[in-house]
C-alpha cells in the first residue's frame, strides 16, 4: 500500500518536472530559437493540443471523428468572443497586446479558454450521445456533417464576423501560455491512459462486445471520451484564436479536421508521444516550407502542402502502417533503460 508521504513526494517531483518543462518550452526555447522558426513552432504546439484531444476519441477509443476542427472552432469563437467583449473594457487589451501582465488578465484568459473548452465539450456531448450508441462509422458521418453545419452557421452570422472571420481578438496567447496548456494537456492525456477510464477506452477499441461483457458501459465510455476530446480541442481553438488574433470559418471545415486526423494517424493512433511529435511536425511544416520557397527550385513543391500531406500518408501506409510511434510511449522507465544501455555500450566500448 503506497504511503501518503511517498505519493506526496512523487507528486511534488512531478509538479517540479512539469514546471521545468513549461519553462523550457515556453521561456527558454523561444529565446534560443531563431525568430522565423517561432511562429511555426507556436502553431505546432497549439496543434498538439487539438491533436491530443482528437487522439482520445480516434486513437484510444477507436472511434472516428472528422469534426475536430469544428470543435476547435467553437472553442476559439467562444473564447475569442469573451475576451473581445471584456478584455478592452477591463484591461485595455487591444488585438496587438502580446503580453499578459497581472492576475486579472490571466484569469480572464483562463476563464475564456475554459469556457471555450466547455462549450466545445458540450457540443461534443450533443453529437456523441445519439451516434455513439451505434457501432461503426456513424460518428464519422455525424461529425463530418456537424463540422459543415458549424462552418455554414458561422459564415452566415454577421455577429461572429461572417465569412471574413472574427477579428480583433486580443493576441495574449504567447509562448508561456501555449506551453502551459500543452504540458497540462499532455499530463491529462497521460493520466487518463494510465488509469481506469483510459483502459476502458482501449477495451472499447479492441472489442466492444467483450468490454460490455466485463461490466464496462461502452456507450458511457465513448460519450465521455467524445466530450473530453471535443473539450480539449476547444481549448486548443481558444489558444489559436488568442495567438493569431483572428478565427476564420474555413478553419472549422472538414479539410482542416482531416489535418488533425493526419497528425494522429501519422504519429501512431493512441500514442500520446507519436501524436505530439506529428502535430509539431505537421504544424510547423507550412511555415517552414515558406522559408524554403526562397529557393526558386523548391517553390513548386512547397506551394501546395496538401500534395506533401498525401505523399506522406502514402509513404506511411506503405512503410509503417501503425504510424511513427505505433502504440509506443516515451516514459521515464524507457529513458532509464536507454541510459543503462548507453552506459553499457560506452563501458564495453572503453574496455574493447
Amino acid at each position, binding site marked *: *500500500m*503506497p504511503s*501518503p508521504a511517498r*505519493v506526496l513526494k512523487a*507528486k511534488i517531483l512531478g509538479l517540479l518536472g512539469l514546471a521545468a518543462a513549461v519553462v523550457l518550452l515556453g521561456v527558454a526555447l523561444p529565446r534560443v530559437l531563431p525568430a522565423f522558426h517561432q511562429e511555426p513552432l507556436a502553431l505546432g504546439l497549439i496543434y498538439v493540443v487539438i491533436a491530443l484531444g482528437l487522439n482520445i476519441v480516434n486513437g484510444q477509443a477507436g472511434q472516428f471523428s472528422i469534426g475536430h476542427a469544428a470543435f476547435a472552432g467553437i472553442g476559439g469563437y467562444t473564447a475569442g468572443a469573451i475576451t473581445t467583449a471584456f478584455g478592452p473594457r477591463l484591461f485595455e487589451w487591444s488585438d496587438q497586446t502580446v503580453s499578459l501582465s497581472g492576475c486579472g488578465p490571466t484569469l480572464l484568459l483562463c476563464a475564456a479558454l475554459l469556457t471555450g473548452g466547455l462549450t466545445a465539450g458540450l457540443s461534443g456531448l450533443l453529437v456523441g450521445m445519439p451516434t455513439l450508441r451505434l457501432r461503426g462509422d456513424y460518428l464519422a458521418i455525424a461529425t463530418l456533417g456537424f463540422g459543415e453545419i458549424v462552418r455554414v452557421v458561422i459564415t452566415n452570422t454577421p455577429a461572429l464576423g461572417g465569412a471574413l472571420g472574427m477579428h480583433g481578438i486580443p493576441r495574449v496567447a504567447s509562448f508561456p501560455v501555449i506551453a502551459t496548456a500543452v504540458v497540462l494537456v499532455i499530463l*491529462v492525456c497521460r*493520466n*487518463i491512459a*494510465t*488509469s*481506469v*477510464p*483510459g*483502459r*476502458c477506452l*482501449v*477495451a472499447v477499441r*479492441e*472489442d466492444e*462486445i*467483450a*468490454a*460490455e*461483457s*466485463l*461490466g*464496462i*458501459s*461502452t456507450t458511457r465510455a465513448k460519450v*465521455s471520451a467524445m466530450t*473530453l476530446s471535443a473539450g480539449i480541442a476547444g481549448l486548443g481553438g481558444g489558444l489559436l484564436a488568442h495567438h493569431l488574433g483572428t478565427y476564420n470559418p474555413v478553419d472549422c471545415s472538414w479539410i482542416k479536421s482531416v489535418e488533425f486526423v493526419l497528425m494522429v494517424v501519422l504519429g501512431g493512433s493512441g500514442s500520446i508521444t507519436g501524436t505530439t511529435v506529428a502535430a509539431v511536425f505537421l504544424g510547423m511544416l507550412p511555415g517552414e516550407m515558406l522559408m524554403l520557397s526562397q529557393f526558386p527550385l523548391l517553390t513548386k513543391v512547397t506551394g501546395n502542402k496538401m500534395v506533401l500531406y498525401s505523399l506522406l500518408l502514402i509513404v506511411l501506409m506503405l512503410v509503417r502502417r501503425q504510424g511513427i510511434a505505433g*502504440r509506443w510511449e516515451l516514459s521515464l522507465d524507457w529513458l532509464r533503460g536507454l541510459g543503462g544501455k548507453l552506459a553499457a555500450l560506452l563501458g564495453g566500448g572503453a574496455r574493447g
Partner: protein
Amino acid sequence: MGPLSHAAPPERDGDGALLQLREVTRMFGGLAAVKDLDLAVPAGSIFGLIGPNGAGKTTVFNLITGANPATSGHVLFGDHDITTQPAYAINRLGVARTFQNTRLFKTVSVADNVRTAASWQAGYGWLHGVLQGLVYARREADLNATVMALLEAFDLADKAREQAQSLPYGEQRRLEIVRALATRPRLLLLDEPAAGLNATETNELMQLVHRIRDERGVTILLIEHDMRLVMGICEQIAVLDHGIKISEGGPADVRGDPQVIAAYLGQQEPEHAPS
C-alpha cells in the same frame, strides 16, 4: 452499485437455483432460435448445456448475458430479473462469460487484459484518473494486487507483460477465463472452453473448471462439444435441439436418453422402419 429495484419477479420455484430461465424465447425474424426454455442452474453446480450445431446454445448465453436479450420470458439471476438489463449491468450483478472464439483485447498486455476487467470495481473514475492523487495510488495498488494474485493462481504471472495475442492458443483461452473471473462473478458461462485444445490441455481445463468452482464457489454453466469433458465434469446437463430442451438430468440419464441419441445421430424414419 446499490440494489436494483424491479417489478416483482414471477414467483420462484426450484429453491437454491442461482440462475433461472422461465419460458424464454428468442426470435430472429420468424425463426425461434430458443423456444419456451425453462432452465434452473443450482448454485454451486457445474451445469452443462449441449446439443447439435445450431441448437441455440450460444443464443442462450447471449440472452443470459444481455448481448441479445430474450424476446419473451424471464431470466432471473438470484433475486434480480435480468431479462432486459444491459450486458454491462448483468456483469456487475455477477455474471461473467467467455466467448466461442476468444475475444481478448489482443494488442493489450496480459496483465492489462485482467486489469481492465477488474476496472469497474476499482472504485474511481475520470476525476481521480486525471488527478492521480492518493485515491488513485491506493486503488491502483489494490487493483494490481488483485491482478497479480489472479495471474499467479492461473500460471500466467510470468507472461504478465506480454501481448495477449502473442500467447499460445491454450493460454489465450485460459486468460479469457481469468479475465472473466476478474469481474468477481457468482456465475461463469463458458462457451466451448475446450474448442481447439488437445487432450492434455482439455484435461488441464477440466481441473481448472473444478478448481474455479471449488476454490472460488463460482457456479459454472458451460457449452461444450467435447463429450468426454461434459460427461466428466458436469453434474447436471440440459440438451437443446432446435431451440427446445429435449432432455435434462445427470450425465448417465442424458447419455441413455433415446431423444438425445436421436438428436445427435438422427432418427430412423417410420416408413423405413424394419418390418
